[in-house]
């Protein structure tokens, strides 16, 4: 079969299909029974030792027919060709192959019973302990509050000479004073505010100074702390980095690491003094997860106060991600041990801060009763519902029984509560009520436990009112934790969480170093952030934005004028060259080899992640390196040759054109028109799932394809739903994604609204006696 028939006019084909449907179905059935069923089963369910996978997929009818024509039956493809192939394809498609036929035949699936995921465990424990602290107000602006003093003696802050907000922690005072009227010989500075951690993971910090400095992060600021005298403001805290004592004129650098949860602000403080040393300087750098060292500065610093957040340090075995999203559907011995150690860690935190958490004085006569009350509240919040008598007896009375000190009782109670199935399995109870809704909302939006407003709404029985659920959802979606969760979804979707370093051949790509790689990741992160937090939160902008977020270093590497000012700014790219995430150089580089592009990686990513397609694993592994290519072949020619066999082409007929259409971007995502002196041929024909052939001439065409493809939109919605709710969409009924898609379209493809809608759908699932909003 030649190219001509592959490009059959689609309209004609569909009309004939409808006219002949009854007849074809019957004929299709008998052909299927005769030629196919022995391997695929009577209803396409598969046959052991033959073809075990069920005959289901996302191909269009046209594509399916062509496949049968060329490939089936495997032992003699000539047996089913022409009209027969079309007829059997139509039967298979209608009877069980297509997504519609699958969902029509199935009732809504049961939700998977699950424990908290690792992320949910960490977030829940952090919020559980945090819920007993009074949270400070959010503040506007960026940077840290700084007070500059002239010192009496070595470091006693005597006369304030200047107060301002500093945008980054990088100061070289040289031999002079930081402000007029301050003695350059002896002065001290205190910086205070919050550090906003952009994502969850290990952060490294390093401080350099030839003078004296202490760096504090995530400590407790207590009553009576101030920065008006030497470094007494932090005397009860342990510094993360302590370089208070200088050593001659030498600049000393020391570092420390700390695990932080993304989407939260942490109290930060830097105390510094200079005393008679010739030169004054101090700087603090950091290395966020997946990034390179850089100066600590805006946008991650805020003058706002924040409270210490307890962060579980214990490392957990990874959650099951076999279906593309992390979920808690399995437990293991290692997980049980990790949760145990984490519970002990949390119990130590509570015991060591019991005064701060409860406000109960050590010598209060009714201390034990008050502490019992605290533990009861702690348990209620952890279990996400009021305590029944059984739980009260098990978790509070029992812990305090016998000859134990209050500290021991609290430690014991906290460990028990966090080890309890009531905490670890959020959907444990058979009651589905207001508390269930509150628990689900908190998990969906924050991966955490309900906050006070949500707890109260549940207690007052308001949450069976669908309108109230939407109000809560909207309120919660504005919280930084919700934004952090959506960002974490995109980190997975766009491979921002890849563990291995992004490296390129330094001979071929001079200048592409670790700093560029780290900036690229940040650039994509900031782009996504910029889009989803904007007013319209428009999915289409993600796909076809014509700008990149660039800083000076990236602008230089990608050959465009540097944006004004420090940091990253949107830079409009040459018309037609860039299209949102599709051509973001981070992804283009990730989806490439060290020394050359990889149309296959790019094509697979676009098919699976962006176009909502399903690909089976390759039937055979082929090593690109060992293949004897003719010298001088282009990458496109090599890929074409290596995937030419028909067993490859079942998937590569879709993968390759997508990859080829991005051949104008080299292995670091720079635009190019030549490959080793030969002009790039990036034009390729792509057959859509509806059977249309689309000529792709570059990223703009791919973007249009994505935006016009229902599968792409559905695929996006399904992926976001799975990540958000940790369940498959069919749990919520076979039309749930269609309904979400309608809402999505009506909202102008608003991602945040989609996220909120998904959260509401999850929260309200299988809850009896709901009060529906009047339409």
């Amino acid at each position, binding site marked *: 079969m030649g190219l001509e028939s592959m490009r059959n006019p689609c309209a004609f084909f569909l009309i004939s299909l409808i006219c002949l449907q009854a007849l074809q179905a019957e004929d299709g059935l008998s052909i299927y029974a005769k030629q196919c069923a022995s391997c695929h089963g009577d209803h396409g369910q598969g046959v052991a030792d033959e073809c075990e996978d069920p005959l289901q997929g996302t191909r269009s009818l046209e594509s399916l027919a062509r496949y049968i024509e060329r490939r089936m039956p495997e032992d003699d493809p000539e047996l089913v060709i022409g009209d027969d192939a079309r007829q059997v394809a139509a039967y298979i498609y209608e009877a069980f192959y297509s997504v519609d036929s699958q969902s029509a035949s199935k009732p809504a699936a*049961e939700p998977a*019973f699950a*424990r908290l995921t690792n992320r949910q465990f960490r977030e829940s424990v952090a919020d559980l302990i945090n819920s007993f602290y009074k949270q400070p107000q959010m503040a506007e602006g960026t940077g840290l509050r700084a007070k500059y003093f002239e010192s009496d*003696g*070595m470091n006693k802050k005597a006369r304030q000479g200047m107060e301002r907000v500093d945008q980054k922690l990088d100061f070289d005072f040289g031999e002079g004073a930081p402000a007029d009227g301050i003695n350059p010989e002896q002065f001290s500075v205190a910086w205070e505010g919050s550090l906003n951690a952009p994502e969850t993971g290990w952060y490294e910090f390093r401080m350099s100074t030839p*003078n*004296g400095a202490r760096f504090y992060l995530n400590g407790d600021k207590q009553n009576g702390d101030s920065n008006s005298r030497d470094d007494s403001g932090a*005397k*009860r805290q*342990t510094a993360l980095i*302590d370089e*208070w*004592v*200088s*050593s*001659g004129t030498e600049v000393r650098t020391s570092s420390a690491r700390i695990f932080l949860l993304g989407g939260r602000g942490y109290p930060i403080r830097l105390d510094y*003094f*200079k*005393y*008679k*040393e010739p030169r004054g300087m101090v700087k603090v750098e950091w290395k966020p997860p997946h990034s390179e060292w850089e100066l600590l500065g805006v946008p991650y610093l805020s003058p706002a106060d924040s409270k210490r957040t307890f962060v579980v340090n214990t490392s957990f075995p990874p959650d099951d991600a076999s279906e593309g999203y992390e979920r808690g559907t399995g*437990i*293991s*011995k290692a997980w*049980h*041990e990790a949760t*145990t*150690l984490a519970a*002990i860690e949390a119990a130590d935190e509570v015991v060591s801060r019991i005064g701060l958490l409860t406000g109960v004085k*050590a010598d209060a006569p009714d201390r034990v009763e008050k502490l019992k009350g605290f533990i009861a509240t702690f348990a209620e919040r952890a279990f996400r519902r009021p305590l029944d008598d*059984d739980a009260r007896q*098990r978790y509070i009375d*029992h812990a305090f029984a016998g000859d134990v*000190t*209050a*500290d*021991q009782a609290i*430690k*014991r109670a906290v*460990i*028990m509560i966090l*080890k*309890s*199935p*009531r905490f670890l*399995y959020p959907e*444990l109870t*058979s009651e589905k009520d207001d508390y269930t809704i509150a628990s689900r909302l908190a998990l969906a939006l924050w991966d955490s436990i309900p906050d006070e407003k949500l707890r109260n709404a549940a207690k007052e029985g308001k949450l069976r009112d669908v309108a109230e659920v939407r109000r809560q959802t909207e309120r919660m979606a504005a919280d930084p934790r919700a934004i952090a969760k959506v960002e974490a979804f995109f980190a997975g979707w766009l491979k921002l969480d890849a563990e291995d370093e992004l490296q390129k051949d330094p001979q071929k790509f001079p200048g592409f170093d670790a700093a560029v790689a780290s900036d690229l990741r940040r650039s994509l992160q900031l782009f996504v952030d910029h889009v989803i937090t904007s007013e319209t939160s428009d999915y289409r902008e993600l796909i076809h934005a014509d700008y990149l977020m660039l800083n000076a270093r990236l602008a230089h590497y990608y050959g465009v004028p540097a944006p004004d000012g420090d940091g990253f700014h949107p830079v409009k790219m040459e018309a037609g060259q860039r299209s949102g995430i599709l051509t973001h150089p981070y992804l283009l580089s990730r989806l490439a080899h060290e020394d050359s592009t990889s149309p296959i990686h790019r094509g697979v990513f676009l098919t699976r992640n962006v176009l909502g397609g399903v690909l089976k694993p390759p039937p055979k592994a082929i090593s690109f390196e060992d293949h004897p290519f003719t010298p001088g072949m282009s990458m496109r020619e090599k890929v074409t040759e290596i995937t030419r066999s028909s067993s490859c082409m079942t998937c590569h007929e879709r993968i390759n054109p997508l990859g080829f259409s991005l051949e104008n971007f080299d292995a670091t995502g720079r635009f190019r028109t030549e490959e080793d002196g030969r002009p790039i041929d990036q034009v390729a024909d792509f057959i859509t799932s509806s059977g249309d052939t689309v000529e792709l001439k570059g990223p703009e065409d791919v973007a249009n394809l994505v935006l016009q493809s229902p599968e792409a939109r559905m695929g996006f919605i399904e992926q976001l739903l799975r990540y958000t709710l940790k369940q498959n969409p069919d749990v919520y009924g076979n039309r749930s994604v269609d309904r979400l898609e309608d809402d999505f379209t009506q909202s102008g493809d608003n991602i945040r609204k989609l996220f909120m809608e998904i959260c509401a759908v999850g929260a309200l699932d299988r809850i009896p006696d709901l009060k529906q909003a009047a339409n």
Partner: protein
Amino acid sequence: MNITTRRQFLRQLGLSAAALPFLPSLPSLAGTVSESPPQRIIFMFTPNGTIPEDFWPDETGADFKLKRILSPLEPFKNRMITLKGVCNKIGGDGDGHMRGISCLLTADQLLPGNIQGGGNKPAGWAGNISIDQEIKNFLQANAATSTRFGSLELGVAVPNRADPWTREAYAGPNQPLAPISDPYALFDKLYGNQKNLENLGSILDDVRDDLKWISAKVDPKEREMLDQHATFVREMEQDLQRSDTQQLMFPAPVLEQGVVLDNDGIPKISAMQIDLLVNAFANGMARVATLQYTNSVGQARMRWLDINDDHHHLSHEPDNNEEAREKLVKINTWLCQQLSDLARKLDAIPEPGGSGTMLDHTTIVWTNELGKGNSHSLDNLPFVMVGGGLGFKGGQALSFDNVPHNRLWMSVAHAFGHPISTFGRQEFCANGPLSLS
């Protein structure tokens, strides 16, 4: 150790034969003990100088009487040495208190820095490794003498602040080592999560109970996961029971819970730290330690002795202030009592795999930042050695003629079989180690 001495050893420990199964690893642990008995050393630090008249024996030689401050050492009189006439001559930048502690074990000048004390130029950290770390490195370099930690740095009420007034041990120039002043943290360092795990046993019991109770009420699908969960809980309980019987030759000491780590907690903290140190040594975790009471300029208020003034303030009072003097004698006697308690506890344990007691193989060196508080003198530092770890002849009051303390640390190193020709500032090492035998 053969089986006879092992039984004897256990009898001495007060353990019956019934206790045997709970010490399964004893033979293998004993097997790692080398032929030659171990040598151990503990440097104990106290601040603010002493009251010389109530400290130094009037006599020299073997026939001497202990004055009031040293009276708690009466039981160890024939196993101790007083060393008069040894002086910290190091000099250099930094005030007397800074040099008093930071040059004490390092025997070298402070590096230039930004820390300004009550006089002299500002200074930074010590410029040399401290003698305890020198010996630790020497012992750790040899498989026969190396231990899990090598050395332990313990504190009692050392302020949570790192500067040349609060550090005596240095891993090298510019590398101060922070002592652990929290007995609970030290416990965790020595015994890991063991204590937590012990508590966990009964918690897991309760968790399993609750799992069972809940499991009975849920769907079969959910029950499957909860049952699996219960299996893991049970397995962990079994693991814990096994680990109860693990490796330690001596069970971890039982610490009083809830001791507040503040000034008034000092007597309890001191006792806990001593127990932990003795236990760690007995279990072969280290052979070198520093035990630092407060810091130079230490300001403990020993209210448990009915003294409400702070130690440093009292030490500045002139000689003719009888009341202050009396209080300082009481303070120093109490500190000496801590030394005596440490010696007594070491003496109560038979040397594992050897002869005599642990004190016979351990030397405690009592050091002070100053000779005398109100003069800030670094001469005649009140050095006392107790125990037989270094093989020096006990039961003597020695008197030297104004010798630099560098030479004392050389003696200590040589006694460990580490014949260094200098330690710290070279000009003070002439004439080699002090003769102590």
